[in-house]
Protein backbone atom coordinates (compact mmCIF):
# COMPACT_ATOMS: atom_id res chain seq x y z
CA UNK A 1 0.00 0.00 0.00
CA UNK A 2 1.50 3.32 -1.03
CA UNK A 3 1.76 5.76 1.87
CA UNK A 4 -0.89 8.44 1.64
CA UNK A 5 0.56 11.07 3.93
CA UNK A 6 2.12 13.60 1.58
CA UNK A 7 4.32 14.94 4.34
CA UNK A 8 5.64 12.20 6.55
CA UNK A 9 5.99 13.12 10.23
CA UNK A 10 9.63 13.69 11.05
CA UNK A 11 11.42 11.03 13.02
CA UNK A 12 12.40 13.52 15.68
CA UNK A 13 11.50 17.16 16.05
CA UNK A 14 12.67 19.35 18.88
CA UNK A 15 11.71 22.79 20.03
CA UNK A 16 12.54 24.68 23.15
CA UNK A 17 9.54 23.25 24.99
CA UNK A 18 8.74 19.96 23.32
CA UNK A 19 10.36 17.05 21.55
CA UNK A 20 8.76 14.38 19.42
CA UNK A 21 9.94 10.88 18.56
CA UNK A 22 8.39 8.54 16.04
CA UNK A 23 7.13 5.26 17.53
CA UNK A 24 4.72 3.46 15.26
CA UNK A 25 2.98 3.68 11.90
CA UNK A 26 -0.06 1.64 10.90
CA UNK A 27 -1.43 1.47 7.36
CA UNK A 28 -4.83 -0.11 6.99
CA UNK A 29 -7.90 -0.25 4.83
CA UNK A 30 -11.21 1.23 5.88
CA UNK A 31 -12.74 -2.07 6.96
CA UNK A 32 -14.48 -2.01 10.38
CA UNK A 33 -13.14 -5.46 11.27
CA UNK A 34 -9.69 -3.83 11.44
CA UNK A 35 -10.69 -1.60 14.35
CA UNK A 36 -9.79 -4.36 16.79
CA UNK A 37 -6.33 -4.57 15.22
CA UNK A 38 -5.69 -0.90 15.93
CA UNK A 39 -6.90 -1.27 19.52
CA UNK A 40 -4.73 -4.32 19.92
CA UNK A 41 -1.65 -2.47 18.66
CA UNK A 42 -2.16 0.59 20.81
CA UNK A 43 -2.73 -1.20 24.10
CA UNK A 44 0.84 -2.47 24.67
CA UNK A 45 2.33 0.69 23.17
CA UNK A 46 0.54 2.96 25.64
CA UNK A 47 1.42 0.66 28.50
CA UNK A 48 5.06 0.77 27.38
CA UNK A 49 4.92 4.57 27.39
CA UNK A 50 3.79 4.51 31.00
CA UNK A 51 0.20 5.59 30.63
CA UNK A 52 -2.16 4.49 33.38
CA UNK A 53 -4.81 1.91 32.62
CA UNK A 54 -7.42 4.68 32.56
CA UNK A 55 -5.41 6.87 30.16
CA UNK A 56 -4.63 3.88 27.95
CA UNK A 57 -8.35 3.12 27.69
CA UNK A 58 -9.03 6.79 26.87
CA UNK A 59 -6.45 6.88 24.06
CA UNK A 60 -7.67 3.60 22.57
CA UNK A 61 -11.27 4.82 22.79
CA UNK A 62 -10.44 8.10 21.02
CA UNK A 63 -8.43 6.50 18.22
CA UNK A 64 -11.04 3.80 17.70
CA UNK A 65 -13.81 6.40 17.43
CA UNK A 66 -11.72 8.60 15.13
CA UNK A 67 -10.94 5.75 12.75
CA UNK A 68 -14.57 4.62 12.83
CA UNK A 69 -15.57 8.19 11.92
CA UNK A 70 -13.19 8.12 8.95
CA UNK A 71 -14.69 4.83 7.77
CA UNK A 72 -18.25 6.03 8.19
CA UNK A 73 -18.18 9.72 7.31
CA UNK A 74 -15.06 10.26 5.19
CA UNK A 75 -15.24 7.05 3.17
CA UNK A 76 -19.02 6.49 3.51
CA UNK A 77 -18.66 2.83 4.31
CA UNK A 78 -16.32 1.92 1.46
CA UNK A 79 -14.16 -0.89 2.77
CA UNK A 80 -10.97 -0.56 0.73
CA UNK A 81 -9.82 3.00 1.32
CA UNK A 82 -6.48 3.87 2.93
CA UNK A 83 -6.03 5.11 6.48
CA UNK A 84 -2.72 5.82 8.18
CA UNK A 85 -2.09 6.11 11.89
CA UNK A 86 1.18 7.55 13.24
CA UNK A 87 2.12 7.47 16.91
CA UNK A 88 4.80 9.81 18.22
CA UNK A 89 6.09 10.17 21.74
CA UNK A 90 5.95 13.73 23.06
CA UNK A 91 7.92 15.31 25.83
CA UNK A 92 7.37 18.82 27.09
CA UNK A 93 8.48 21.05 29.90
CA UNK A 94 5.70 22.62 31.91
CA UNK A 95 5.97 24.31 35.29
CA UNK A 96 9.49 23.05 35.72
CA UNK A 97 8.48 19.43 35.20
CA UNK A 98 8.84 17.10 32.26
CA UNK A 99 5.61 15.62 30.97
CA UNK A 100 5.48 12.63 28.68
CA UNK A 101 2.70 12.13 26.20
CA UNK A 102 1.66 10.73 22.89
CA UNK A 103 0.66 12.35 19.60
CA UNK A 104 -1.47 10.31 17.22
CA UNK A 105 -1.93 11.49 13.65
CA UNK A 106 -4.63 9.99 11.47
CA UNK A 107 -4.65 10.55 7.71
CA UNK A 108 -7.32 9.71 5.16
CA UNK A 109 -7.99 10.59 1.53
CA UNK A 110 -11.65 11.44 1.89
CA UNK A 111 -13.19 14.79 0.94
CA UNK A 112 -12.45 17.78 3.15
CA UNK A 113 -14.42 17.74 6.37
CA UNK A 114 -16.76 20.65 6.99
CA UNK A 115 -16.23 20.98 10.71
CA UNK A 116 -19.44 23.00 11.04
CA UNK A 117 -21.41 19.96 9.89
CA UNK A 118 -19.80 17.28 12.05
CA UNK A 119 -22.47 15.04 13.52
CA UNK A 120 -22.03 15.87 17.19
CA UNK A 121 -25.23 16.32 19.13
CA UNK A 122 -26.19 17.77 22.46
CA UNK A 123 -25.52 15.28 25.22
CA UNK A 124 -28.81 16.31 26.77
CA UNK A 125 -30.62 14.49 23.99
CA UNK A 126 -31.35 10.83 24.60
CA UNK A 127 -31.03 9.26 21.20
CA UNK A 128 -28.62 6.93 19.47
CA UNK A 129 -25.75 8.27 17.38
CA UNK A 130 -23.61 11.39 17.29
CA UNK A 131 -21.51 10.42 20.30
CA UNK A 132 -18.19 9.75 18.60
CA UNK A 133 -16.88 13.32 18.66
CA UNK A 134 -17.86 13.79 22.30
CA UNK A 135 -16.02 10.62 23.18
CA UNK A 136 -12.90 11.69 21.27
CA UNK A 137 -12.85 15.16 22.82
CA UNK A 138 -13.63 13.81 26.27
CA UNK A 139 -10.81 11.29 26.09
CA UNK A 140 -7.89 13.37 24.79
CA UNK A 141 -6.14 16.57 25.87
CA UNK A 142 -6.07 18.04 22.37
CA UNK A 143 -8.01 17.28 19.19
CA UNK A 144 -7.15 19.19 16.01
CA UNK A 145 -8.44 18.70 12.49
CA UNK A 146 -6.56 20.04 9.50
CA UNK A 147 -6.90 19.68 5.73
CA UNK A 148 -3.38 18.90 4.54
CA UNK A 149 -3.35 19.09 0.73
CA UNK A 150 -5.60 16.26 -0.46
CA UNK A 151 -5.64 14.60 2.95
CA UNK A 152 -7.60 14.93 6.14
CA UNK A 153 -5.35 15.01 9.18
CA UNK A 154 -6.62 14.52 12.70
CA UNK A 155 -4.16 15.12 15.50
CA UNK A 156 -4.85 13.66 18.93
CA UNK A 157 -2.64 14.40 21.92
CA UNK A 158 -2.64 13.10 25.45
CA UNK A 159 -0.11 13.57 28.21
CA UNK A 160 0.45 11.03 30.94
CA UNK A 161 0.60 13.69 33.63
CA UNK A 162 -1.51 16.76 33.27
CA UNK A 163 -2.69 19.70 35.24
CA UNK A 164 -6.45 19.03 35.20
CA UNK A 165 -6.75 15.45 36.19
CA UNK A 166 -6.13 13.79 32.88
CA UNK A 167 -6.55 16.74 30.58
CA UNK A 168 -3.47 18.91 30.07
CA UNK A 169 -4.06 22.64 29.88
CA UNK A 170 -0.62 24.05 29.09
CA UNK A 171 0.06 24.26 25.38
CA UNK A 172 2.54 22.05 23.64
CA UNK A 173 3.99 23.37 20.40
CA UNK A 174 1.93 22.11 17.50
CA UNK A 175 3.79 20.92 14.45
Amino acid at each position, binding site marked *: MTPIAAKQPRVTKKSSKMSRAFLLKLELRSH*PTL*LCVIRGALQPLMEMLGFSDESTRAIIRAVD*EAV*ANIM*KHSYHGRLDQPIEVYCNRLQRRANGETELGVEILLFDCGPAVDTTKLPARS*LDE*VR*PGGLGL*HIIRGSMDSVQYKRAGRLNRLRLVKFAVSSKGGCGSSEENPS
Partner: protein
Amino acid sequence: MNISARHIEKATILDVSGNIDMSNSPEVRKALLREIREKGVTRVVMNLSAVAYIDSSGVASLVEGLKASRDLGLRFVLYGLNDAAREVLKISRLLKLFEVYDDEAQAIAS
Protein backbone atom coordinates in the same frame (compact mmCIF):
# COMPACT_ATOMS: atom_id res chain seq x y z
CA MET B 1 -18.52 -10.96 19.51
CA ASN B 2 -21.13 -13.47 20.56
CA ILE B 3 -24.64 -12.85 21.78
CA SER B 4 -27.15 -15.37 23.13
CA ALA B 5 -30.44 -15.20 25.00
CA ARG B 6 -31.67 -16.96 28.13
CA HIS B 7 -35.18 -16.73 29.46
CA ILE B 8 -36.01 -16.73 33.16
CA GLU B 9 -39.74 -16.39 33.85
CA LYS B 10 -40.76 -13.12 32.18
CA ALA B 11 -37.21 -11.83 31.74
CA THR B 12 -34.73 -12.22 28.93
CA ILE B 13 -31.05 -12.20 29.72
CA LEU B 14 -28.80 -11.35 26.78
CA ASP B 15 -25.27 -12.63 27.32
CA VAL B 16 -22.80 -10.69 25.21
CA SER B 17 -19.11 -11.47 24.96
CA GLY B 18 -16.15 -9.95 23.13
CA ASN B 19 -15.87 -6.44 21.73
CA ILE B 20 -18.80 -4.36 20.54
CA ASP B 21 -17.76 -1.92 17.85
CA MET B 22 -18.82 -0.61 14.45
CA SER B 23 -18.18 -4.00 12.85
CA ASN B 24 -20.78 -5.86 14.89
CA SER B 25 -23.01 -3.42 16.78
CA PRO B 26 -25.83 -3.91 14.21
CA GLU B 27 -26.01 -7.55 15.39
CA VAL B 28 -26.34 -6.40 18.99
CA ARG B 29 -29.01 -3.90 18.03
CA LYS B 30 -30.96 -6.49 16.06
CA ALA B 31 -30.85 -9.11 18.82
CA LEU B 32 -31.75 -6.59 21.48
CA LEU B 33 -34.72 -5.12 19.62
CA ARG B 34 -35.99 -8.60 18.75
CA GLU B 35 -36.07 -9.59 22.40
CA ILE B 36 -37.76 -6.36 23.38
CA ARG B 37 -40.39 -6.29 20.64
CA GLU B 38 -41.14 -9.93 19.88
CA LYS B 39 -40.69 -12.07 22.97
CA GLY B 40 -43.38 -10.70 25.23
CA VAL B 41 -41.12 -10.33 28.24
CA THR B 42 -41.40 -7.69 30.94
CA ARG B 43 -37.70 -7.22 31.50
CA VAL B 44 -34.62 -7.37 29.29
CA VAL B 45 -31.30 -7.75 31.06
CA MET B 46 -27.98 -7.30 29.25
CA ASN B 47 -25.06 -9.20 30.70
CA LEU B 48 -21.97 -7.20 29.69
CA SER B 49 -19.56 -8.91 32.08
CA ALA B 50 -17.70 -10.57 29.19
CA VAL B 51 -17.60 -7.44 27.03
CA ALA B 52 -14.07 -6.04 26.96
CA TYR B 53 -14.79 -2.98 24.81
CA ILE B 54 -17.81 -1.05 23.61
CA ASP B 55 -17.70 1.93 21.26
CA SER B 56 -20.20 4.67 20.47
CA SER B 57 -22.09 2.47 18.00
CA GLY B 58 -22.55 -0.11 20.75
CA VAL B 59 -23.71 2.60 23.12
CA ALA B 60 -26.16 3.74 20.44
CA SER B 61 -27.57 0.20 20.34
CA LEU B 62 -28.08 0.27 24.10
CA VAL B 63 -29.85 3.63 23.83
CA GLU B 64 -32.12 2.21 21.15
CA GLY B 65 -32.89 -0.72 23.40
CA LEU B 66 -33.68 1.59 26.27
CA LYS B 67 -36.01 3.73 24.19
CA ALA B 68 -37.79 0.70 22.70
CA SER B 69 -38.21 -0.74 26.19
CA ARG B 70 -39.67 2.47 27.52
CA ASP B 71 -42.06 2.68 24.58
CA LEU B 72 -43.37 -0.79 25.42
CA GLY B 73 -43.33 -0.35 29.20
CA LEU B 74 -40.51 -2.87 29.77
CA ARG B 75 -37.58 -2.70 32.15
CA PHE B 76 -34.17 -2.56 30.49
CA VAL B 77 -31.29 -3.41 32.80
CA LEU B 78 -27.52 -3.71 32.39
CA TYR B 79 -25.04 -5.54 34.57
CA GLY B 80 -21.39 -6.52 34.65
CA LEU B 81 -19.97 -3.35 33.11
CA ASN B 82 -16.18 -3.16 33.19
CA ASP B 83 -14.27 0.12 33.52
CA ALA B 84 -14.16 0.70 29.76
CA ALA B 85 -17.93 0.36 29.41
CA ARG B 86 -18.61 2.57 32.43
CA GLU B 87 -16.24 5.24 31.15
CA VAL B 88 -17.76 5.44 27.67
CA LEU B 89 -21.26 5.72 29.15
CA LYS B 90 -20.04 8.35 31.60
CA ILE B 91 -18.36 10.47 28.90
CA SER B 92 -21.58 10.21 26.88
CA ARG B 93 -23.52 11.32 29.99
CA LEU B 94 -25.65 8.20 29.69
CA LEU B 95 -24.54 6.20 32.73
CA LYS B 96 -27.28 7.60 34.95
CA LEU B 97 -29.87 6.96 32.28
CA PHE B 98 -29.51 3.20 32.53
CA GLU B 99 -30.34 0.86 35.38
CA VAL B 100 -26.92 -0.65 36.07
CA TYR B 101 -26.20 -3.46 38.53
CA ASP B 102 -23.09 -5.32 39.51
CA ASP B 103 -24.32 -8.87 38.95
CA GLU B 104 -27.16 -10.97 37.62
CA ALA B 105 -28.80 -11.60 40.99
CA GLN B 106 -29.17 -7.88 41.56
CA ALA B 107 -30.32 -7.27 38.00
CA ILE B 108 -33.04 -9.92 38.30
CA ALA B 109 -34.13 -8.95 41.82
CA SER B 110 -34.30 -5.22 41.14
